[in-house]
């Protein structure tokens, strides 16, 4: 926290209380997830308040604050839904059942059992 507070001193006070989005890691190994938001005049107090609002019961192991105005999002959501076929990018795009059956018939081998034992 000391490091973070030092690093943010350069940011000028905004002149208004504004929303800061809070991201938190609940336990080691988890991704940072959005927790909520706090109103604060600057990053130093935003971090103090994020700690109070999102970890006063030690429910976070890491916290970020991001000024809401600094978040950029993709304007055109249509770009996330390409209209043409992208099945070659996904496992489900490869259907081999019939071809495998034919191959087994040719080789005379039975379908192998799933091997769950120690090798």
């Amino acid at each position, binding site marked *: *926290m000391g490091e973070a507070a030092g690093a943010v001193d350069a940011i000028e006070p905004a002149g208004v209380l504004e929303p800061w989005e809070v991201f938190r890691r609940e336990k080691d190994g988890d991704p940072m997830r959005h927790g909520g938001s*706090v*109103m604060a005049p600057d990053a*130093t*107090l935003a971090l*103090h308040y994020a700690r*109070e*609002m999102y970890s*006063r019961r030690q429910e976070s192991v890491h916290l970020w604050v991001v000024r809401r105005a600094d978040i950029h999002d993709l304007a055109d959501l249509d770009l996330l839904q390409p209209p043409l076929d992208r099945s070659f990018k996904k496992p489900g795009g490869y259907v081999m059942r019939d071809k495998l059956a034919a191959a087994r018939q040719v080789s005379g081998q039975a379908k192998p059992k799933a091997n769950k034992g120690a090798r």
Partner: protein
Amino acid sequence: MTDFAGLEPIAMDFSGAGGGRERALALLLLSMADDEFVIGFSDSEWTGIGPILEEDVAISSLAQDELGHAQALYRLFVDVVADGRDADAVAYDRPPDGYIHARLLDHPRGDWAWTIARRWLYETADAARLAALAETSYEPLRQLVDKLRREERYHEMHVDAWLERLAGGGAEPRRRLEAALTAMGPDAGTVLAPLPGELALVRHGILAEPFAAIEARWRAVTSTRLIGLGLAALPPTTDPDHARSGHSDAFRVLHADFTMVRRSEVGATW
């Protein structure tokens, strides 16, 4: 622990406090516990009425931390005096003159500037005191001081951020801050005033150095910070011989309030 029994539960007799290790240790623990207890009470008055909601939650955590520290210190105290009282009995069942918190903490809550000024003066002094106890030979205290210092680090960051904002937040905040520092400045050093028996503490390796040396170091650090913010350095302590006695009316009012429920049914379990 025989020589201590006569002093309780009424006011500590400072002039009679001798050089015994246990007795001096008990006095040190009680003074620290009472400091944390009283500032915790004053700060907890902000819960529910803080200047902004986020800050309200923050100051309440600080108050809870101080009270938690008081509780831990009272527990060490009862282990040392071993007179059958528990931490709650020590915390609540003394008359007002039986408390030995520093005079700085006798000031009422006041406005936000008073709270910040008092917290800043206290936190910096307490940090200096804890630093002098970091290597204490009394193992239970050493373990506790280690934990206290971890929490107090956040307290110092929080209060220093506010000191800076009030000092630079325009005419009115600055005027209020200066008024608070002027009123409480002469009492700030009471947190680090010499304790009876402190030479025994130093001799036994409980305290690294006498309070006068701790206070001098604290004054140098705080003066640099205050002057850096364009504020006046702290004046010398007024009446240092009564740093922890002769409490204010504000504390007596506080005492009447915090003992109210307990007094209503003496000996009951709550």
